[in-house]
C-alpha cells in the first residue's frame, strides 16, 4: 500500500494477550483515511480483537496505536468510542423499538435524538420509516444488522468498524449491506474497516485489504493482492476460500 493517503489508524508493534494466550503478535500497519479496507483471514486470526483495540474496549499489552496520528491512549474513552464506531456481528439490540435503539447514543449522553436523525438513518440503511416503531426483537437478521449499523452511524463516527456483519445473511441481504457500505463511505467520507470471510466482497467492495493469520498481519495492500498473493499461507487460504 503506498502512503499517498493519510492514515486513519496506525498500528506499531502491537501485541495483545488474553489469559496467557497470544492473540495478536507484533502488528504493524495502517488503515487509509476515508477508504474501505477489508480484513480477511481464518477464524481465530485476531481480527475482532484488533477492532476491539481500535474502539478502546481493550488496550494493547505493548506497542502503540495511533488514531489520526494521536496516540489512542491520549483520547478520552468516550471521545474515542464516538470517533471510532463499531458494529458487531451479533448486532445486539437493547429491548424496545428500533427508534429506542437508534436513540441509544444520544440517550447515553443525556440528550434527545432529533426526529429527523432517526428518519435519515433508517432511510440511509434502506429501511422505511415504519420500522422505527417496530420492536427490535422482531427484526430479521439482515434488518438487525442494518439497524445496528444505523445505530453506530447516528453519532457520525469518522471511522466505522464492521465485524462480519454479512456472514449470517442471505445473498440478497448481503448485497444490500455491501451497497450500504459503499454509500456510507461516499456520503459521509467515513473510513470503513470491514471484517469479512467473503473474498468476493473483499475484492469488489474493499479498496485495500489486510490478511491476518494466527494473530499476525501477513499481507497488506490493494485488494487485488488477493488475486495473486505473495505469501504461501495466504495463497493456501485464498485457494481454500475460493473453492
Amino acid at each position, binding site marked *: 500500500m503506498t502512503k499517498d493517503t493519510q492514515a486513519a489508524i496506525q498500528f506499531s508493534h502491537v501485541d495483545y494477550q*488474553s*489469559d496467557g494466550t497470544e492473540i495478536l503478535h507484533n502488528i504493524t500497519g495502517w488503515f487509509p483515511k476515508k477508504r474501505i479496507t477489508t480484513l480477511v483471514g481464518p477464524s481465530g486470526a485476531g481480527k475482532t480483537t484488533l477492532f476491539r483495540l481500535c*474502539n*478502546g*474496549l*481493550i*488496550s494493547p499489552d505493548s506497542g502503540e496505536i495511533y488514531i489520526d496520528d494521536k496516540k489512542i*491512549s491520549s483520547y478520552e*474513552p*468516550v471521545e474515542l*468510542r*464516538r470517533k471510532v*464506531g*463499531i458494529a*458487531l456481528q*451479533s448486532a*445486539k439490540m*437493547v429491548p424496545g423499538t428500533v427508534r429506542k435503539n437508534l436513540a*441509544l*447514543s444520544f440517550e*447515553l*449522553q443525556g440528550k434527545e435524538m432529533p426526529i429527523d436523525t432517526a428518519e435519515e438513518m433508517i432511510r440511509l440503511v434502506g429501511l422505511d420509516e415504519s420500522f422505527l416503531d417496530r420492536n427490535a426483537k422482531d427484526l430479521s437478521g439482515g434488518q438487525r444488522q442494518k439497524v445496528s449499523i444505523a*445505530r*453506530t452511524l447516528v*453519532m457520525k463516527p469518522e471511522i466505522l468498524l464492521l465485524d462480519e456483519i454479512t456472514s449470517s445473511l442471505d445473498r440478497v441481504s448481503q448485497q444490500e449491506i455491501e451497497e450500504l457500505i459503499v454509500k456510507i463511505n461516499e456520503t459521509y467520507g467515513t473510513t470503513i474497516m470491514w471484517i469479512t470471510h467473503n473474498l468476493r466482497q473483499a475484492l469488489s467492495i474493499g479498496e485495500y485489504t489486510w490478511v491476518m493469520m494466527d494473530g499476525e498481519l501477513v499481507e497488506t495492500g490493494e485488494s487485488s493482492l488477493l488475486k495473486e498473493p505473495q505469501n504461501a499461507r495466504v495463497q493456501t487460504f485464498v485457494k481454500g476460500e475460493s473453492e
Partner: protein
Amino acid sequence: MSFLLLGLSLIFVLIPLILSKTLNLGLEKDAFVATIRAIIQLLAVGYILQFVFDAENFFYIFLMVILIIGAAVQNARKKGVSIRGITWKLVVTFVFIEVLTQGILLGLNITPATAQYIIPISGMVIGNSMVLSILFLNRFTSEIETREDETELILSLGGTPKQAIHRPLISSIQASTIPTIESQKTIGLVQLPGMMSGQIIAGADPLQAVMFQLLIIFLLLTTAVVTSAMLGFLSYPTLFNERMQLLKPEKK
C-alpha cells in the same frame, strides 16, 4: 426447659434418621453432623450470651457484634470472589447496616441499649444482610456474564461504566430483595415468625411479641434493600478500569 426435656426432644432427630435409614435416603451422616453442630454452637452461644448479659459491659457487646459481622463476611465472600475486594465491600456494607439500624433503634429509644436487645437484633439484621448479599452476588455475577454483550455494546457506543452496568445491577438488586418482600406479604398467615413464636412460648404477652416482630420486619426490609443497593454500587466500579474497559472476572 431442663436438659432432660431437651434430651427428650432428640426424638425429633431420631425420626428423620430412622426414615433416612429405612428409605435409603443417605441423609444420616449429614443430619447427625448438623444436629451435633447445632447443639454445640447454640449451647456455646447461650453460655457466651449469659456471660455478656451478666457482665453488662459495652466492650463485650461490641466484641459480639464484630464476631457476628466477621462470620457473615466469611460466609458471603465465597459467592463474590470474582469481584475485586469483595471482602472489604462486605465489611463496609455490614458495618453500615449495623450502624444504621442500631443508630435508629437506640437513637430514638425504640429499644434499650442493653446486650439483651443489641445482640439478638444485630444477629437477625446481619444474618439477613448476609443472605441478601449471597443472593445479590450470585445474581450479579451471573448477570454480568450473561449480559456481557449488552454491557460492551453500551461501552462501545460511548456509554459510561455506570450506564453499561445499569440493567444487570438493577435487575440483581430487584431479584435479591424479592424473597424478603414476598415473605413479608404472607407473614402471620402461613406461619408465625420464629422470634414471635419464641417470645410467646417463653410467656410474653402476644401483642408485645407481635410488636417486636413488626419491628424486626421493618428492620429486615431496610436491611434487604440497603444491602443489595450498597453492595451493588460498591462493586460495579471494580468491574471496569480507568479506560472504561470491562475487566475479566478474577479467577475463583
